[in-house]
């Protein structure tokens, strides 16, 4: 479903600030795979997601989504098949528009936008039905502006908007990191639920190693622009955070504790 082949990216090449963010990423995701991505800061996790989404153009390498090469496609074109939820809860919705208007925008992903009414009666019913799944009572507040919602509510809405329009790939970039633990749990639960329901092919970056082990069907660890560890479902389920750290130390031959990795 998603195929990343030998992608390299260097920021500010040939300057003192040169940063090699990606050094040959190879990744293949089957349909319905839910991969969690961990790694220290500067490991290239976000850059990899941005390369897949089309926000960052790779220097080398190619990317395919569903057997179609998208390496040169611009981000908004690729967005027809790629759903995203950002770390910042404010980033995923339009604050001045109402909840139903935001959902109407998401609803049209991959379709031509014409002069038809954005929010119709039928759509309203459908939106309310979808919102019920969040169990936040948002279905009664369709005409409230998204800017009035709390961070957790906005992030839950962003997740719904990113997924109910059936993207082929879902990219989650630390989408629970800016929330308090309770809300983060809620959004994580919702994520698992909707990914399972729609069998979405998903890449989720997280800083929380326990979460990375607990959620999803596969785990990859990145370090300095490379994928250094790739473990499948069963192996992952048997692992603890300590095992993961030990594995990292073994590969990198360095002593690291959870905290350094989390930095």
């Amino acid at each position, binding site marked *: 479903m998603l195929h990343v082949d030998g992608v390299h990216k260097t920021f500010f090449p040939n300057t003192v600030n040169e940063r090699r963010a990606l050094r040959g990423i190879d990744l293949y995701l089957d349909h319905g795979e839910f991969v969690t991505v961990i790694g220290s800061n500067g490991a290239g996790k976000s850059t990899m997601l941005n390369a897949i*989404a089309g926000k960052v153009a790779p220097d080398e390498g190619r990317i395919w989504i569903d057997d179609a090469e998208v390496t040169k496609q611009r*981000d*908004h*074109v690729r*967005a*027809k098949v*790629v*759903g*995203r939820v*950002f770390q910042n809860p*404010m*980033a*995923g*919705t*339009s*604050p*001045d*528009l*109402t909840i139903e*208007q*935001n959902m*109407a*925008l*998401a609803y*049209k*992903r*991959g379709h031509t*936008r*014409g*002069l*038809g*009414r*954005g*929010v119709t009666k039928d759509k309203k019913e459908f939106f309310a039905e979808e919102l019920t799944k969040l169990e936040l*009572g948002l279905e*009664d*507040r*369709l*005409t*409230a*502006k998204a800017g*009035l*919602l*709390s961070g957790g509510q906005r992030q839950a809405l962003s997740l719904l*908007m*990113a997924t109910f*329009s059936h993207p082929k790939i879902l990219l989650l970039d630390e989408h629970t990191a800016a929330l308090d633990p309770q809300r983060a749990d809620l959004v994580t639960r919702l994520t698992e639920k909707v990914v399972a329901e729609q069998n979405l092919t998903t890449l989720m970056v997280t800083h929380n190693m326990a979460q990375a082990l607990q959620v999803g069907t596969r785990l990859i660890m990145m370090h300095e622009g490379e994928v250094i560890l790739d473990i499948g479902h069963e192996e992952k389920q048997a692992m603890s955070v300590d095992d993961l750290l030990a594995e990292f130390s073994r590969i990198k031959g360095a002593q690291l504790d959870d905290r350094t990795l989390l930095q």
Partner: protein
Amino acid sequence: MLIAVELGLIYAVMALGVYLTFRVLDLPDLTVDGSFTTGAATAAVLIVGGTPAPLAMVAAFLAGSVAGLVTGLLHTKGNINGLLAGILTMIGLYSINLRILGQANVSLLGEDTMFQALRVMGISRGPLLIGVLVIMVVVIKVIIDWFLATDVGLALQATGDNEEMIRSFGVSTDRMKMVGLVLSNGLVALCGSLVAQYQGFADIGMGVGLILVGLASVIVGQAIFGTRTTFVATGAVVIGAVIYRAAIQIALQVGLTPNDMKLISAILVVIALLVPQWGVFRRSRRRRVRASSTPAANPTTRSAAGDSASGR
């Protein structure tokens, strides 16, 4: 004062155009100074040449749209700063406008203008004319309200509100910005054609400083009436345009001369931008924000919040 209301309603067409760029797209567009005159010049020359007034006004709208498209292309495809792109088009249009006019001004006295036609029908200055102008402006306002509620219109609003987000749903924000600039400058040029017909001539300098008039109308109107829904926001712009003309009229009656107009416009915009940040007004605004957010935070009054928020 009736003349001030007439003028205010005519200039409201331009203010609605400025609203589309300045507020909806969050992109202050200075093309307006040039495209206003382009509209006036196009319509004036066509009317003098015997084209029926309605057709000449359509041509004016299209001419303005092209100007907006040029600014849009410079800004999006050329990666030129929005303000600079507008200034470049505006300056370039000065020469083009002179070409269209052929001289510094073109008189429309005795020509078959829209207002001449209304006069023949017995609608000259005064309440009757105001009635006709109100209908015209309301029709344009309703069209804009409708447009902003369509799928394209929502994408346009989101482009000004959260560009990253709307791109992630597959919308080309470049295209949306061009749509906004084209519509905006079309309306501005249409307004130019109306003003030329109203005052009986088109003049190369008639658009100078006009962006301030547009901004003043948008800012004053929305400072007073708010922007809760598109319906309210566009209505506020129309009323703001009339208030602006009334303020100018009062300034003139107090003893200032037409030469002072630009200074008055500038001061009016500054006041409208500063006042909401001061004391009494700030408190009242805060209260409004709190009043609308408190029920949202409290689940027990959820339905009340839903009702109060359903402005449409």
